[in-house]
């Protein structure tokens, strides 16, 4: 439970609303969803907006408290940088949560001066780390360690249901805050459910399985991890029915444990050494098995690294081979082109040579007919020479074309070889990738086994400590049962066993519980309840209402009448705002208040129906003892206690007897048992 200063909504209204929700047994997921989503507009459920309005919409304060109260993680230290000592608390997660909340703010209606929650549709969450210079980061809305949520997009100008303007409360079409509330309300976050289960456990047992309840991280694991997972599942299965869940806890063997050490404990004394030895042997086993796993893990890491190197080399080779294939194919294409060009050239030259040969032949015939014409003969001669020359050229061209063609087959072979080599490399690479994948899978399952082994080791080590403390005590008690050593060992043993949940933890009452318990024990509350019941019956009798609402009204009336009395306890015992102190701390103020305060003093004065009026009327001292112990400590006195009461009353009569009874009641009200084991 936490206290907070009130700003916009009266604490009574908030309490009454909460009271109603609890009385109607509203599922916790819905209730918390509404508390986060409420904008305070609906008059009937306006009080739900207290969470937001009391924090004046300060987004960092809200981020911290949503983290703490809804998710069990205090991310405060991750506001300016990743958490310096908690590995799981990242600045990115802080701002992921902040992104759900920082568009919301308090809007005060200018006319009514009433405060509401407003929200904008824009504004990104940017941040820097004070540990890292110059880098800027941004965060999309997400729960710690999870993916950002999907957000709908709207056309420009369509983002708002009610657009921002002067003196207008803007409402976006998509509210990030409501989206967060919805995740909780729908029970979609296991962190949330787990936190609720842990907090409900803490309500009953005075300490969470994860403790502090808002410091859930891997270095602060639950004392009983499987139990917490089971409780988380159950809470979801029970549809977040807090009443049913608390009932289950109340009925559990764990809850009904005694605060006393088991009587048969001393019987273990002779075996204590053996028990310690056995436990130590188990530790050695667990250590060995963990060491084996660690070794295997090392080998795996080496294999993976070798495979990774091989894969990298293959990839490099493949790349090189791809270049070679491309080169060979380009070269082949060039050669083919050259061959074709040479063939064309050869053909052209051949045609040319043939043409001139024909001309030369014709000219030779003409020259034979015109023997005397030297000009013709000369021409025929020249043509003949020319034809010979051209033939030679054509021959040369053909030869070259043949040469070019001859280059093709080797080049073709080369390209084919390059392609084949590339294909082989691809096969190799695929095989290596597959092998790496299976190695990595193996490593994952190995890591899981290692984590299990580590947990096992912690568990057996804890058992060794349990046994050692038992052994220490048994030995010390065997030497000198009353000695300082035995006393010290006993305190350590009981402390340890209660931390390990083998015996019940001592649980100091919180200020309200203490106040109400004193009111109840002194018999001040009962008449108030009776009067409220009567008044309510008179009133409701006429209206003919059903019974359950009746008892709520009665409780509320009795509560209201007692509020000021309880406030007196609060003034002395509460630390003011914020989370309650982690551990109870006795103060001299409390003792002074109980001893000299007019509240407790006044309740010990006899008045109608009160304990100090009732008990003096009992004649039999032993019966007085029973009434005192039943009324104040809710149990019957043991024989020694009965005798102590009889002793205390001896020789005191009349007013003196009443005074003696008052003294005893005060003694029991201020006893350690009343305060710590009520």
């Amino acid at each position, binding site marked *: 439970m936490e206290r907070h200063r009130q700003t916009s909504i009266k604490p009574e209204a908030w309490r009454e609303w909460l009271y109603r929700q609890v009385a109607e047994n509203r599922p916790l997921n819905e209730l918390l969803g509404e508390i986060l989503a409420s904008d305070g507009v609906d008059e009937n459920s306006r009080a739900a907006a207290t969470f937001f309005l009391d924090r004046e919409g300060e987004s960092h304060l809200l981020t911290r408290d949503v983290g703490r109260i809804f998710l069990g993680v205090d991310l405060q230290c991750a506001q300016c940088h990743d958490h310096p000592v908690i590995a799981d608390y990242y600045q990115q997660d802080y701002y992921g949560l902040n992104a759900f909340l920082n568009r919301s703010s308090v809007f005060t209606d200018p006319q009514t001066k009433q405060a509401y929650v407003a929200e904008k549709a824009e504004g990104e969450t940017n941040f820097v780390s004070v540990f890292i210079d110059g880098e800027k980061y941004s965060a999309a809305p997400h729960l710690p360690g999870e993916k950002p949520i999907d957000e709908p997009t709207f056309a420009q100008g369509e983002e708002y249901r009610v657009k921002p303007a002067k003196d207008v409360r803007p409402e976006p079409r998509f509210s990030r805050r409501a989206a967060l509330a919805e995740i909780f309300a729908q029970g979609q976050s296991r962190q949330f459910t787990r936190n609720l289960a842990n907090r409900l456990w803490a309500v009953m047992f005075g300490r969470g399985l994860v403790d502090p309840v808002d410091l859930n991280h891997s270095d602060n694991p639950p004392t009983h991890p499987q139990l917490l997972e089971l409780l988380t599942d159950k809470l979801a299965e029970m549809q977040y029915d807090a009443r049913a869940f608390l009932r289950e806890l109340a009925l559990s063997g764990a809850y009904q444990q005694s605060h006393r050490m088991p009587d048969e404990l001393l019987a273990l004394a002779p075996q204590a050494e053996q028990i310690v030895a056995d436990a130590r042997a188990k530790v050695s086993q667990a250590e060995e098995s963990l060491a084996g796993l660690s070794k295997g893990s090392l080998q795996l890491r080496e294999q993976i690294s070798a495979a990774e190197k091989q894969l990298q080399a293959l990839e490099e080779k493949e790349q090189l081979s791809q270049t070679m294939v491309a080169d060979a194919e380009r070269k082949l294409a060039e050669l083919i082109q050259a061959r074709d060009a040479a063939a064309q050239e050869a053909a052209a030259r051949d045609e040319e040579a043939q043409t001139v040969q024909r001309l030369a032949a014709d000219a030779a015939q003409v020259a034979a007919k015109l023997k005397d014409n030297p000009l013709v003969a000369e021409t025929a001669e020249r043509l003949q020479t020319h034809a010979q020359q051209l033939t030679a050229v054509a021959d040369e061209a053909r030869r070259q074309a043949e040469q070019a063609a001859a280059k093709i087959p080797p080049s073709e072979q080369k390209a084919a070889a390059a392609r084949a080599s590339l294909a082989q490399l691809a096969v190799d690479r695929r095989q290596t990738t597959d092998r790496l994948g299976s190695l990595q899978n193996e490593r994952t399952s190995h890591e899981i086994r290692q984590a299990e082994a580590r947990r096992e080791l912690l568990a057996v080590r804890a058992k060794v400590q349990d046994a050692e403390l038992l052994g220490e005590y048994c030995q010390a008690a065997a030497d000198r049962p009353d000695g300082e050593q035995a006393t010290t060992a006993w305190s350590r043993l009981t402390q340890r066993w209660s931390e390990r949940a083998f015996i019940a933890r001592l649980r100091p009452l919180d200020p309200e519980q203490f106040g109400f318990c004193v009111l109840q024990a002194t018999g001040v509350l009962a008449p108030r309840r009776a009067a409220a019941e009567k008044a309510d019956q008179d009133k409701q009798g006429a209206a003919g209402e059903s019974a359950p609402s009746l008892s709520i009204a009665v409780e509320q009336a009795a509560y209201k009448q007692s509020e000021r009395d309880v406030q007196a306890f609060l003034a002395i015992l509460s630390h*003011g705002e914020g989370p309650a102190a982690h551990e109870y701390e006795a103060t001299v103020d409390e*003792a*002074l*208040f109980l001893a000299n305060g007019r509240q407790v003093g006044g309740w010990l004065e006899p008045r109608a129906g009160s304990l100090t009026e009732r008990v003096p009327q009992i004649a039999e001292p032993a019966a007085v003892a029973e009434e005192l112990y039943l009324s104040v400590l809710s149990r019957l006195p043991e024989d020694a206690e009965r005798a102590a009461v009889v002793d205390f009353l001896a020789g005191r009569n009349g007013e003196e007897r009443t005074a003696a009874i008052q003294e005893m009641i005060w*003694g029991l009200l201020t*006893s350690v048992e009343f305060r710590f084991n009520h």
Partner: protein
Amino acid sequence: MLCRYACRSTDHLLARRAFLGGLVAGAGAVGSGVLRPFSRPALCQELENRRKQILVVFLHGGVSQLESWDPKPGTDTGGPFRAIPTSTPGVHISELLPHTARQMHHLALVRSVNTRENDHAKGKYMMETGRREEAATAYPKLGAVFSRILAPADSPLPGNVHISYGDGGARSNDAAYLGAKYASLVLGGGKPPQNTTRLDGLDAEADQRRNAFRRLADDRFLLARRTAATDAYTYSFEQAQRLMEQRNVFDVTRESESEQDRYGKHDFGRHCLLARRLLEHGVTYVQVTHSNYDTHYENFDFHIEQLGEFDRPFATLIADLADRGLLETTLVVVMSEFGRTPRINDRYGRDHWGTAWSVALGGCGVQKEAVIGKTNANGTAVADREVDHANLFHTYLQAVGVDSTDHIDAGGRPMPLADPSSEPIKELLA
């Protein structure tokens, strides 16, 4: 099963307390790997030898540095008052503090404070916690910090007492994560703490009888289970008895008429005398508030009046602490939430001014007669050695021998004692 304890002798009780102390520290260390339990053992011996105490005089509303520790006569901002020499050669303060001037050799001045804050509540918070306000974290105030670190656990008197005006008698909640035990006990109007007298109709014998019955019931229960918390609870009733026996410590009328006259019979005089009584009886942290210095109108008249009331009782208190040898182990600080503007406004007032103002210190761990830093000729800016609330907070801790870079365990979380990005004013430390 029950444990057969030895008798409840004093020896036993002491040994048990020592053991439980160890138990608590041990639990802290086991509970989380990251936690460093407060490094008290190193301090312990030294503190046992010489118990350190702290006196803070808070001049509420913001005293004018120009009418007190840093006068600027003859300048446009100086106002009408002269500067007078003090018992520290070369150091002058305002003529409004003639008695204090004669005790100046016990004191030191920091004249270069710049807190960059002109809001009363924020300035006060900064000066008392050494930090700026943060939305999601409340820091403990000086008194709570010192009470937690320095106050002896078995003292019947509270470790953190504020003497103020008006009602009181109850705890405030200024200890934040340190726990209610260390919060200040406010003695409104110098009245004793509440619930320290027995109710009418209950005599001492009856009180003893009912406590005896309580112990009887507890003894039986504690055979089965006893923890540090149950021990602290049963012990708190013994403490309550002892506090009631010492109730007279809070009553200044127990001082002789002449002593009361030396301090003056007005509120602040009585409060200073009460502070002396409390310090003499070993209360670790005493804060006296003097109000009100918020002089937006008629600054000079108001300072004649306020400092006229402040001067003699304060100087008497310093002289008495010095005479009794208490000043050697008691750190004295005179602070405000801020100073006042050099500019004199049109109503002869001075306004809020966090930019260049002064704090006076003295006693334990402080370099006597030191003057740290200075402002410019007419006091409108710090001219040398600028410091702020965080530097001062570190300095207070160091002055009484506490490592100000240490952490304190706050319900499972290590919190730095002082702002980790700041440091003490080393040249001010003795």
